[in-house]
């Protein structure tokens, strides 16, 4: 399956992703409705985007007493069925990364469903900090950035310019 990979070293906290997600959920730009959240810490100059990684054995799925959280067989996304959600908030507590939030109007829990396999946050991330990638490829940019450093170190002399 594919997941949304986040890269805090590229994110500029522009909030395109939050707006795009909120729009998808409600038609409005209230970032509280977004299933992806971006935190910006000015003192540390840190931009941290985060959303659900659709865990193999989702604790939210396990804990849900209503059996409202299920895996979508097509996309692999862990999804909440709003019609069955009891609004007990157990999943918010269970999720280790805080990727579920509570909708106080509809009184149900909300989370990322990968937009059915074409996530809006990724399409509207203009820095490229968000990528929609096969899970086994996720975070390979970490390796690539090391490769690039090595490439520069050992490849420099060959470069004509």
């Amino acid at each position, binding site marked *: 399956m594919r997941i949304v990979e986040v890269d805090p*070293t*590229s*994110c*500029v*906290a*522009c*909030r*395109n992703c939050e*707006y*795009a997600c909120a*729009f998808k959920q409600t*038609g*409005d*730009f*209230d*970032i509280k409705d977004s299933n992806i959240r971006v935190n*910006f810490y*000015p*003192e540390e*100059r840190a*931009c941290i985007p985060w959303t659900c990684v659709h865990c193999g054995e989702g604790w939210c799925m396990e804990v849900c007493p209503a059996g409202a959280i299920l895996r979508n067989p097509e996309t692999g996304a862990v999804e909440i069925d709003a019609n069955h959600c009891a609004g007990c908030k157990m999943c918010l507590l269970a999720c280790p990364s805080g990727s579920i939030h509570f909708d106080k109007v509809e009184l149900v829990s909300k989370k990322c469903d990968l937009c059915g396999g074409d996530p809006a946050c990724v*399409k*509207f*991330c*203009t*820095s*490229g*900090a968000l990528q929609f990638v096969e899970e086994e490829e996720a975070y390979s*940019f970490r390796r*690539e*950035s090391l490769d*690039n*450093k090595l*490439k*520069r170190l050992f490849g420099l002399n060959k470069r004509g*310019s």
Partner: protein
Amino acid sequence: MPERETVQTLCRMCDDRCAINVYLEDGKIVDIDGYKEHPWNRGRLCVKARAAVDMVYHPERLLKPLKRTKRGFEEIPLQQALDEIAERLLAIKDKHGARSISIWKGEAIGFAQEEDMARRFVHALGSPNYFSNDSMCYNGRYFGYRLVEGSWPVPDYENSRCVVIWGANPPHAHPNMTQMIMRARKAGAKLIVVDPRMSAIARQADLHADLKPGTDGALALGLIQQLIETQGYDREFVEHYTVGFTELAEYAKAFSPERVEEQTGVAAAVVRELARTIAAAAPRVAVYVGNGPEHHENGINNIRAVACLDAILGALDREGGNRLVEGFKANHLTLYDEIPLEHLGPIGADRFPVLYGFRQECHTMTGINTILSGEPYPIRAMILTAANPALTNPNTLKVREALGSLDLFVVRDLFMTPTAELADYVLPAASFLERVELHTHAKYQRITMTRKILKFPDVQDEYQFWHDLAHRLGIGEYFPWEDETELTRWILEPTDISLERAAAHPEGIEYTPIRYRKWEKEPFNTPSGKVEFSSQYLKDLGYPALPEYKPPAYLESPDPEYPFVLITGARKLIYYHSRFRNIKRFRTAIPGPEVELHPEDAAALGVADGDSIRITSRIGSVEVPAKIKSAVEILPGTLQMTHGWKEANVNLLTHDDRFDPISGFPLMKAVEVQVENV
């Protein structure tokens, strides 16, 4: 089942023109997302793009011509509006001469070939008076680079080892440039950001130089000084391809890191580190200058000093540096060769000869004075197409008075704006989804043709409007093409790209392959044919030949009555200048104007976040809610307020009589102000 269709075109909610998929159901646009095959945006979009759906079907959209009457604006038939406008233009031409008629081109609906249509029209009519928003954005950088390098190059981000973003905030102003910068960083490039504020792009900077507003030249000269002193410059390039190096080196000597620190506030150690970082990456240093340095009284020379870095580093037109763009050799609509009108005294050409000489543009702020004074000759009519100077030009009250006093003021726009409210006729303009036109992405040397997807009955595209008016005014011979498609066919005629081929390639067509180091064979587009550190052209016009630095007025002679310095016009992602305040969900995200300030200043004033404060300059006063930033995001004593809000219009404060002497750009990013808690 509704009939579904997907077509590709370019977004023009801002001037970046990202490629989009437009989804239609029964001919109505229902959604927009990114088109993956175009290299500019690779399928990614900012959230403005989707709002085009809301914009074109907006309930407030102008769809009928309006005429001012005693009872206010009233709808009139399109043909009658054009007849009346033509009749009144001819009467004004008879009475005051053709040059009393002017055109003002804006940003709102998109300009590439539309700009040239407006220029063609006004020249065909016999007037040299073409004004545009470029007098406030873009031209300044173009002049700075053109004077030094012969044109404004594009940063070759992806191949660079050091990206320098100078007074620009791509995530908000050119969103998809951000992915290019981040690709460079992923491949190991360093990112340097020069900006008084911690802008969005500065959040990822390896080095952020938060200089005092308007001191850019001192920093650039300091870097030049360091590069020369440490032998970190490209001796061979400088020797063979430049003029004025000895003079520049001599002049830059005075800009030691310590002197730079004293001027800019950037620590001497940081200046040294900046110089070391770019020297280590040379020649793969890509520099992008934004609108920040333009709006200062020494703006152009500051930009020239930054431009000199390209040549000193040998980064000019080298892979990973700043590449000189090869133009698309198509037919041009302008009539400057056929009907030169310089002898008629284009407004501002005497005061700002570079502005007219390089861009054939008149000076908007002088134009406003001319309308009011009738000197040196009357300007009595104006057709303004999708600009909003009543909010965006400096000294709003004067702008309104002038535009409101014209004998004939015609405005074309998508919506009623504060500018359109002053008009005699307001005509509905076509959005980018209703026009066929060519756009060049200079960075990729690619042209892409847009598609006419929608049509509203009384809404004319730009070409149809100029065509219909020209034919009523006896200058129809200059507008012989039946419609914009035929016009576009003519534009493409001398090229090997046909209209049909352009239409078949929504990913664009590379019109000429990208080449580097063209200077090995071709001269630079400067008078000497070389890079000009020192400009005889400027010297002959009475300007300094070197990119000399002058400290901004608020530092050189502080005004105790106005102790704060106000930066105006920082970009916001979702608002494009004064546009899109009527998109409802945008208002949820950013509900209204605010002024950014430092927490220490807020504390001293006793202001809490969201409190209203009054800002006063020598020109005027506004009240606006305070936005207290963190101490690292803005310099103490400095405020920032974004333009384009009629609820709190920052241009009630800005000066329309303090300019950069070369470009005529107004001082808008270092305005002395007083601040009070109300």
